[in-house]
């Protein structure tokens, strides 16, 4: 779909990083990737592959989980981000939407969205306009604007978290599993929003996803992570055509989509493990 988007200069570069939790658990074993300016890059991989860890390493949120980048470098616009205050990164335009809908439970939906604009200095009017924009993207949020976020449904919370990130007027969003727990048409809708924001405002995305199908449809480039290593990378279109990706990530067999009923426990070995 968008696979042919031109590869522009890299906005974010992750260079061979290693992450250790608690001083003992080695999770990332040398991950490198780059996100081009104005591109949508997706990070695919199974559970525990290290997607979230990668995103947190970038946004410097690892520290509070007793994790640390022990090797390698991360550069945003050519400058090292390690050791910086997460808030500073937000000010410079990188914001993360965390996995698992971290909304402020006791704040109302609207207050949640407003916290997204915390670092902004461009006046009330601009913020209010963006609030309207977010409400236009997510009409459901408008309905529930006065409810405490803690009492909204899972999907509503996810929208709230994404809306909150948009409120900061970022240049780059690190989006961790936006589709998780969302109804299909919402997933579609959210990815449409990602796409339109990307196109309209030139926002770059780094998108960790399990929903490979959707992710590869919308992204320009992709990386596949397994057990803390990048095992495959390339243009989304190419990845979609790769037979292994097809079988293991898209659930397609040669005859088209497999039914979940027919899955056997025996599986072909992944080629890159060979």
């Amino acid at each position, binding site marked *: 779909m968008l696979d042919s988007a031109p590869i522009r200069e890299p906005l974010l570069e992750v260079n061979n990083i290693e992450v*250790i939790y*608690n*001083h*003992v*658990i*080695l999770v990332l074993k040398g991950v490198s990737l780059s996100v081009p300016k104005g591109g949508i890059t997706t990070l695919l991989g199974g559970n525990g592959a290290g997607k979230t860890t990668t995103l947190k390493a970038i946004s410097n949120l690892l520290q509070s989980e007793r994790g640390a980048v022990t090797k390698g470098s991360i550069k945003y616009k050519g400058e090292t981000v390690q050791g910086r205050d997460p808030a500073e990164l937000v000010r410079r335009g990188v914001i993360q939407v965390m996995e698992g809908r971290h909304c402020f439970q006791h704040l109302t939906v609207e207050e949640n969205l407003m916290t997204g604009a915390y670092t902004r200095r461009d006046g009330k009017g601009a913020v209010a306009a963006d609030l309207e924009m977010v409400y236009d993207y997510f009409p459901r949020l408008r309905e529930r604007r006065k409810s405490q976020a803690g009492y909204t449904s899972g999907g509503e919370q996810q929208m709230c978290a994404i809306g909150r990130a948009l409120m900061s007027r970022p240049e780059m969003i690190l989006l961790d599993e936006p589709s998780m727990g969302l109804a299909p048409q919402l997933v579609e809708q959210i990815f449409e929003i990602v796409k339109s924001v990307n196109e309209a405002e030139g926002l770059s995305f780094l998108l960790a996803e399990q929903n490979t199908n959707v992710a590869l449809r919308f992204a320009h480039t992709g990386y596949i992570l397994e057990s803390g290593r990048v095992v495959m990378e390339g243009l989304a279109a190419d990845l979609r055509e790769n037979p292994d990706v097809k079988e293991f990530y898209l659930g397609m067999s040669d005859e088209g989509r497999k039914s979940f009923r027919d899955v056997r426990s025996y599986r072909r070995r992944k080629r890159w493990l060979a």
Partner: protein
Amino acid sequence: MLYRTAGQFKTSYKADQALFPVKQDAILLGVILVFAWVVFPLAASEFTFQTLLIPILIYALAAMGLNILTGYAGQLSLGTAAFMGVGAYACYKMVTLMPWMNPIVAILLSGVFSAGVGVAFGIPSLRIKGFYLAIATLAAQFFLVWLFEKWAWLYNYNASGAIQVPNLEMFGVYVAGPQADSLVQYYVVLAIVSVMTMLCINLTRGTLGRTWKATRDVDIAAELIGINLMKSKLTAFMVSSYIVGVAGALFVFMWRGAAEPNLFDIPLSFRILFIAIIGGLGSILGNYLGAILIVGLPVVLGTLPAALGVPIASSMVEHINVMMVGALIIFFLIIEPHGLAQLWRLIREKLIIWPFPH
């Protein structure tokens, strides 16, 4: 390679459930026991008994009681000292009303009273959670201390309002009171504390332990998978207060010899909480480590200037001591919020994979 677990296979679930599935742990424990039962008693001076060995054991026991409640069942308690007080006063009343009673039996029975009081003050935990629950335990804390002060029957109407441990003998040996020998008291404490530790280990690794931990971690989910929260919380209060009560009785009868009501005031509760937390919530071993640190540290710090020949006024030593304890608490919380026991666990993990870094 000293600490290798590889090669120690378990062939039955029974073996897997043995207390020390790793051989090295069992050896280590053996060494500690030899020290506790043989080496220390032979080597220790009166001062060591009175300021280190006996109090460390008793504090560790009290912290263990608290740990059951706070560390395992997740119910924050700031009233430990008051429950210790209940144990101590119950024991005092028993031995003065029934002087023929065996002192050890009295000590073990006194826990029953604090268990009862503990359950009563635990009832609000069914509705109140987190820090709010602390209020219930604080109410117990302040109300009970007030009661110890006002209810003259508890201290046999004596003029000072303090209780004084009479000389108590067992098989012709004084075990409590001014005439009792420190060595004897040490052995009594060690025996009781060892047995209680064993029981605690059993309780916490079995069904009840899992019930408590489930209640602690996600109480809603716990209830939804079939745990009766009321029962779980109240048994935690009961077991915890029992142990704490016994620790209180030991505290006064085997160590202090006398007690005023305000001995059981909140600073003591905090002290025990420190021990439990620095040692590690949800760990049995941690209570000992915490007690060694919190009881031992000030003693060591206090003797340090003299030993080094640095002339510092003792009040200054004390100020510095208070500061150091405060700073060390923060320090230990920072290096390992889950306590010394967790630190030990991490060291073990490192040892297991040693000499490889990961």
